[in-house]
């Protein structure tokens, strides 16, 4: 904290001056500390510096280290705010941006400023965004070292710009700034996916991501505009106040309007696009063409969770939809995506792609959590997932970096025994355990919270929630299987490897390997200190994140306490018998909420603490139950009981059930993909599994279809791309023949023809010009004479 204070003191004068210039006029909410406005702008300044450095021909790693330092400053500011945070939302007005009015009446002004809104949700997001960005930037400084020079600068420029955009997205106090950040991260994602712009696959993947995201973004933009026309504002605080009051700008009762379900559905479009859900997921696996740090930061930890953030942030709007159409779509969309992506991941061989599909799958969990009204679980899963998925990606990246771009798990085996790969293997193991939901890992707690909530929420609240719960449970098993499939294949077993096509070769001498990569001349290139350090930090983070579950137990963990102090909180007592999602009592939020605390304590009075951590979990489960029990009964008169899992309270039994599913998955993986004589413990059947995959009659088509990703890409190509292409070819020819040749060229040639006729008169002889000039004067004089003598 001393360091942080020192940094604050260091930059204080600068910020003061900036504030003075910008006219520090915080409006609405409590004005926050001025230095928070620097969280996004420090990366922006960093991007500018990187660009300048690159433009001036920098050829070393200065941009990377400078980026790391600047991001660390941003992170430090965030942490310092977190430490000093009192629990109330604060607003920081950085500068005016778009703010105009065309009348004095309500809804006749539009405000979207560079103002930042800090509540628990954005603070939590900013913590892992800036923190992970710092770590991954450090990792990338080594990972990208083969590209030192302009490419290096390009990478870190886009990287810093991404952090700026992501910060705007998360911290903005209005939907417009969120949209700016939204498009900004989309742009940076596009730039970074296509980083290897000489590789066609990378360029295509970038375009695919961009185009698919555009479709979703259209929904977001329409939702934004509809929000404005409905509520007359897009700033969170007034907007939530209006939703709380249950009225639109025109005074109509919100629940009666079509906007109450249209706006959430449109926002879901944007969120699903950015977070690769349902029909939009196809861009994310291809996005793995980008450099691995990008995959880790943007396409696993931060950007793809923007959709989750959006839904969590606009939760009051989703709750205002009394028919819960939007919530059902969110829940089922997430659950189906989770399952679907997991099935595909099971049959892939590219380890990064597997991680990509698992990201989609886990994002599905998060959306399901939101749909089941467990924003706490969803947000906690976002947080833990950010850590362990980043760990996994970075470990994969280390493999890729070390083995000249090799990503095919069939060509790698037993890496763990090689010199210098211990840390990577260990980090991978931790990441896999988290992802698989192995008991007592962070991923285990966060995922179980969602799963339990799926069963806990009655089917009548969210349609078919328990079925979705079973689907998610099954998915958890599949997840464990494909996760450990990677681990057993790549890190365990006899040490066999084959270098890749050195597209990401090791330190410039990869060219030699390309010539003889079939030979034994290839030496894997173990990760250096920066990569190892980052792996260690992130792996430790994934482990320690589990501990957060036991902080602030009455709010279901630390994430819960953060959510509690934000708009994402689903108020227990607010379901709704007087026409709005919030009643008078429910508006009082915060951890001081007496009802919550009392109830949770009352329920959690058993001796559960003796059985920690299980007891803690059950206590938390009870707390969660208490959180909902009263309102559910209150709101839906017919529902007196929350949902059950196999006749038990889901919060109590879930962790056993999911542990069983996870264990089965891991054991299957160990059986099919563990090497023969796996560490003397069990008999692996990797070879047999391969044989089955190749020859097995029953499973072969399924496997093949899954490997080909259920032909979704081909389906899209046939249904969307091909017709578009045909139409665009038609228009192309129309344009070429009718517009270009028929109109433009013809018009363009007329002056040419005229000139070719007239140029003959330009003899170049001054006599010719003189005689014509004098003739012109004579003509003019004749005209003058006629006019004068008339």
């Amino acid at each position, binding site marked *: 904290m001393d360091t942080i204070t020192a940094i604050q003191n260091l930059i204080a004068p600068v910020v003061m001056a900036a504030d003075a210039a910008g006219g520090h006029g915080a409006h609405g909410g409590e004005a926050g500390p001025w230095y928070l406005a620097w969280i996004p702008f420090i990366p922006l300044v960093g991007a500018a510096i990187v660009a300048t450095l690159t433009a001036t021909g920098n050829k070393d790693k200065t941009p990377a280290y400078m980026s790391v330092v600047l991001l660390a400053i941003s992170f430090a500011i965030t942490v310092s705010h977190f430490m000093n945070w009192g629990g109330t939302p604060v607003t920081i007005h950085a500068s005016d941006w778009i703010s105009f009015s065309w009348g004095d009446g309500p809804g006749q002004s539009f405000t979207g400023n560079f103002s930042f809104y800090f509540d628990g949700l954005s603070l939590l997001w900013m913590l892992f965004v800036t923190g992970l960005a710092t770590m991954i930037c450090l990792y990338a400084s080594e990972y990208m070292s083969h590209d030192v020079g302009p490419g290096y600068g390009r990478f870190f420029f886009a990287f810093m710009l991404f952090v700026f955009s992501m910060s705007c997205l998360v911290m903005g106090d209005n939907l417009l700034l969120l949209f700016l950040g939204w498009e900004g991260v989309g742009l940076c994602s596009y730039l970074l996916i296509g980083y290897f712009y000489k590789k066609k696959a990378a360029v295509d993947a970038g375009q695919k991501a961009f185009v698919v995201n555009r479709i979703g973004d259209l929904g977001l933009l329409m939702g934004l505009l509809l929000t404005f026309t409905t509520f007359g504002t897009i700033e969170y605080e007034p907007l939530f106040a209006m939703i709380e009051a249950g009225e639109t700008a025109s005074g109509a009762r919100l629940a009666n309007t079509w906007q109450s379900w249209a706006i959430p559905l449109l926002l879901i479009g944007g969120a699903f696009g950015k977070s690769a859900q349902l029909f939009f997921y196809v861009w994310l696996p291809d996005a793995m063409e980008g450099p691995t740090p990008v995959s880790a930061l943007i396409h696993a930890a931060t950007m793809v969770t923007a959709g989750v953030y959006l839904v969590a942030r606009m939760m009051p709007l989703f709750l205002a939809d009394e028919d819960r159409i939007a919530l059902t779509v969110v829940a089922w969309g997430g659950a189906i995506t989770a399952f679907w992506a997991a099935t595909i991941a099971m049959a892939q061989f590219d380890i990064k792609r597997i991680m990509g599909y698992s990201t989609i799958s886990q994002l599905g969990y998060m959306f399901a959590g939101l749909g089941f009204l467990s924003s706490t679980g969803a947000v906690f899963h976002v947080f833990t997932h950010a850590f362990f998925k980043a760990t996994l990606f970075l470990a994969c990246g280390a493999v890729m970096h070390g083995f000249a771009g090799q990503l095919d798990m069939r060509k790698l085996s037993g890496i763990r025994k090689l010199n210098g790969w211990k840390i990577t293997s260990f980090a991978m193991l931790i990441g896999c355990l988290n992802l698989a939901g192995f008991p007592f890992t962070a991923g285990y707690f966060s995922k179980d919270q969602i799963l339990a909530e799926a069963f806990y929420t009655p089917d009548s609240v969210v349609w078919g929630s328990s079925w979705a719960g079973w689907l998610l449970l099954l998915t958890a098993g599949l997840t464990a299987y494909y996760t450990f499939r990677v681990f057993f294949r790549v890190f365990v077993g006899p040490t066999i490897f084959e270098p890749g096509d050195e597209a990401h070769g090791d330190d410039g001498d990869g060219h030699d390997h390309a010539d003889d990569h079939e030979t034994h001349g290839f030496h894997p290139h173990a990760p250096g200190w920066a990569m190892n350090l980052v792996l260690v930090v992130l792996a430790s983070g994934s482990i320690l994140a589990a501990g957060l579950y036991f902080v602030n137990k009455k709010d279901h963990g630390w994430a819960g306490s953060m959510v509690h102090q934000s708009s994402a909180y689903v108020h227990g007592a607010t379901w709704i018998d007087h026409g709005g999602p919030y009643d008078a009592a429910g508006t009082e939020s915060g951890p001081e909420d007496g009802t919550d605390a009392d109830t949770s304590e009352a329920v959690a009075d058993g001796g559960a603490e003796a059985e920690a951590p299980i007891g803690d979990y059950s206590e938390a489960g009870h707390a969660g139950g208490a959180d909902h029990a009263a309102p559910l009964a209150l709101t839906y008169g017919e529902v007196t009981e929350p949902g059950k899992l196999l006749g038990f309270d889901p919060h109590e039994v879930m962790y056993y059930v999911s542990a069983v599913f996870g264990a089965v998955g891991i054991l299957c993986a160990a059986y099919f993909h563990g090497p023969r004589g796996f560490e003397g413990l069990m008999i692996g059947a990797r070879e047999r599994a391969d044989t089955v995959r190749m020859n097995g009659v029953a499973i072969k088509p399924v496997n093949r279809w899954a490997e080909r990703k259920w032909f979704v890409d081909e389906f899209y190509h046939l249904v969307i791309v091909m017709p578009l292409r045909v139409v665009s070819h038609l228009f192309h020819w129309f344009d070429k023949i009718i517009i270009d040749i028929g109109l433009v060229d013809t018009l363009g040639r007329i002056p040419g023809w005229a000139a070719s006729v007239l140029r003959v008169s330009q003899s170049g002889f001054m006599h010719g010009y003189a005689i014509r000039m004098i003739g012109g004067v004579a003509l003019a004089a004749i005209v003058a004479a006629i006019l004068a*003598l008339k």
Partner: protein
Amino acid sequence: MLGPPRVSDGTKPSCVAGKAGASEGALEAIINPLLLYGGCALGAVGVAFALPKRGASLAVIGGIIAAAAAGLVVMGLTFAALPSEGLGEGGLLEGNFGALPNIYFHVFGVLALASGLRMITHPRPVYAALYFILTIVASSGLYVLLSAEFMAFALIIIYAGAILITYLFVIMLATQAPSEEEPDRLSEYDAVAREPVAAAAVGFVLLAVITTLMFSGLPTLERSRSEASPEPALELFHGKWEPDLTESLRAAELIDITETIAIDSGLAELDLSAAPVTVLVTSPVGDSRRVEIPMELIPEGFVATNVERVGMNLLAEHPMTIEIAGVILLMAMLGATVLARKQVDIEEAEKERQARRLGLLEEGA
């Protein structure tokens, strides 16, 4: 140049270019339009003939035709300007020349036009320059007729004496050395005029238009200064005659030896409206009185000459223009100097080229 537009009398506006009908009124007061346009057409034919070409030279015929054309127009002008009394009683034959110009006008005018025609038609540049000198001399004769003696002589000195000599120098400098076998052979570009017919047509159409416009406006041209109140010369040129006047008045004992002519802001206090003219004189003690100036005492020298008047006009009324003219001359001098320096460069390059050709300089040096 144009007078106020004539009020139309209902007839269609006349075509001014050549053949078609005459304009009514103003133009006819100066010249018969038929004569004017006929003269112009004839002049065009003559000039077209007179311009140099290969083969049989028609210069003499062209010159005669052109002279006839000019004569036609001048005749037309003269007819229109004849005194209203006609030739007879109180008319031309009795010394009433009306508005007709001096006989010297015809001499000099024809000389100017003829030598101008010869100048543009003579194939040899030296002769053309000499004919141009003749034009200038004729012009200066016209200037004298127009009471512009100073300008007449300045024209001869500056133009004929300086500018044309420069021309002659350049002509000599810039002429190719004649070949041995044909010392008199003309260059192609000297011997053949370019598009003589078109040029003559355009030029004379322009002449017809210009003269039509000028002559139409002439009857209504107002004099810029009233003839009734000419500027008093005594006031303008007091410095020239003041001492003489004082001496004369003293010699005639009209004033005392101690008295002097009163000067107010540089001017003698004359009363020109009185007859005879009076002047205010003051005595050393402060008395002042008016003294009549007898006619015979007005010194002859005070009458301003043409040079004095031009100088007065130039310096008193156009000082800024003099400055601008000075700047232009300076620029011309600088420009000529710069261009002259360039000639040195060209000569250097030429020398180098020749040296290389002669093998005095190594290739690529």
